[in-house]
């Protein structure tokens, strides 16, 4: 199958560049605010892993299933997009899993198995910190920084003080917790506590307790933003979990700007017949 180059360009713009740990452009200085800290403001990353492409023939796809794979195609148009990799194997091969206490692994496996019914985000619950990843847009001002997120359960924002104040102790637990931030050199370190336990850390049954403590680190170099996350949860982990870091590019495409979120409503949970999940 030939994929038109124009379409590939769209693909690169929408998907690829969001993931590549791009080398900091040497000729792009990191913008700074009046107080000398890096200015993290901007629209960061891609726009949802969606892309458009055209091909000159029909195409079809094989969808991995925990059921026995069946090499059939309804139209007889098998193409290179015929996908045959097993999602379970992919998950099993992931070397960076949260370090759950051994006696909790059976529970994690069970949650993983029942993910398509039990994962809170499948029912449109907020994904929370840190599952929703880095913000899509950052607005930085004196003493405060605002993180804005786009997720399918909804658009969320976090207003975080950067003036050195301590955590509040008068708040109930919540999806995004209570966050305070400080500068360590040119890295903004965001400390998060006060979480509820209605979020997971991933779709593999990675639950956590209200004792979860998250530290996020943001480092801007030119037009790239490095995002790193460490998760502690003494109730369920044997040691802190360092999630794989990500490098995001500044995104100046006005079409990728945040827009209002459609209502999230899971209408078809009753039709799920097996344990398949992503």
């Amino acid at each position: 199958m030939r994929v038109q180059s124009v379409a590939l360009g769209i693909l690169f713009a929408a998907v690829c560049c969001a993931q590549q740990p791009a080398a900091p452009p040497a000729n792009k200085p990191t913008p700074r605010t009046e107080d000398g800290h890096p200015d993290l403001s901007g629209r960061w990353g891609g726009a949802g892993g969606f892309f458009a492409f055209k091909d000159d023939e029909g195409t079809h796809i094989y969808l991995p299933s925990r059921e026995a794979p069946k090499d059939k195609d309804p139209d007889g148009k098998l193409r290179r997009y015929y996908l045959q990799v097993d999602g379970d194997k992919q998950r099993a091969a992931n070397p960076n899993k949260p370090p759950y206490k051994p006696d909790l692994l059976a529970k994690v496996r069970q949650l993983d198995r029942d993910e398509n019914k039990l994962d809170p985000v499948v029912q449109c619950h907020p994904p929370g910190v840190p599952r929703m990843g880095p913000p899509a847009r950052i607005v930085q001002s004196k003493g405060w920084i605002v993180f804005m997120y786009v997720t399918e359960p909804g658009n969320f924002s976090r207003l975080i003080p950067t003036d050195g104040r301590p955590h509040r102790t008068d708040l109930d637990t919540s999806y995004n917790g209570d966050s305070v931030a400080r500068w360590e050199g040119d890295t903004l370190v965001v400390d998060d506590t006060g979480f509820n336990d209605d979020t997971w850390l991933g779709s593999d049954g990675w639950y956590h307790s209200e004792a979860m403590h998250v530290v996020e680190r943001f480092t801007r170099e030119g037009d790239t933003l490095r995002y790193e996350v460490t998760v502690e949860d003494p109730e369920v982990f044997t040691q802190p979990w360092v999630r794989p870091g990500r490098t995001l590019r500044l995104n100046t495409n006005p079409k990728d700007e945040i827009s209002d979120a459609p209502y999230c409503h899971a209408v078809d949970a009753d039709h799920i017949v097996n344990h398949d999940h992503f």
Partner: protein
Amino acid sequence: MRLRTFYFSFAIAGALALAAFPVFAHHSFTAEFDVEKPVTFTGTVTGLEYYNPHVQVYLDVAAEDGKIDKWHLESGPPNQWQRGGLRKAMLAPGTMVKIRAYRAKDGTQNFAFLRDLTFLSGPQNGTHFELWIGGLDEQGRPIYPGQK
């Protein structure tokens, strides 16, 4: 008739790992729909629910016995439609479309996942939109729903 085809796709798991807009409210296609039970028909749009994580489309389909079958189609997320150029206003009630879809595994009558649609009336008459789950990575290799 003008015939334009739009193939567009979404890389669910790719979005999980790669993009700043996470996509993760989806269930797996294979948990609910059967790729071996394709169905093709022509119908008239009666309603549309522009929900995350799946747009829902409702159609009246003329059955052989003269009756009207009420069809319910599930599609991808609104972001897929938006970025592919498929707008909810295009599917105003009364719009005629040809549909290819995959039936639900649980046996629910007239419930299926939308694979593609071709407009048979209105301003988009003749335009074809292909909606499928998957995509390519930067090397042109498939991205598939099970990938992290």
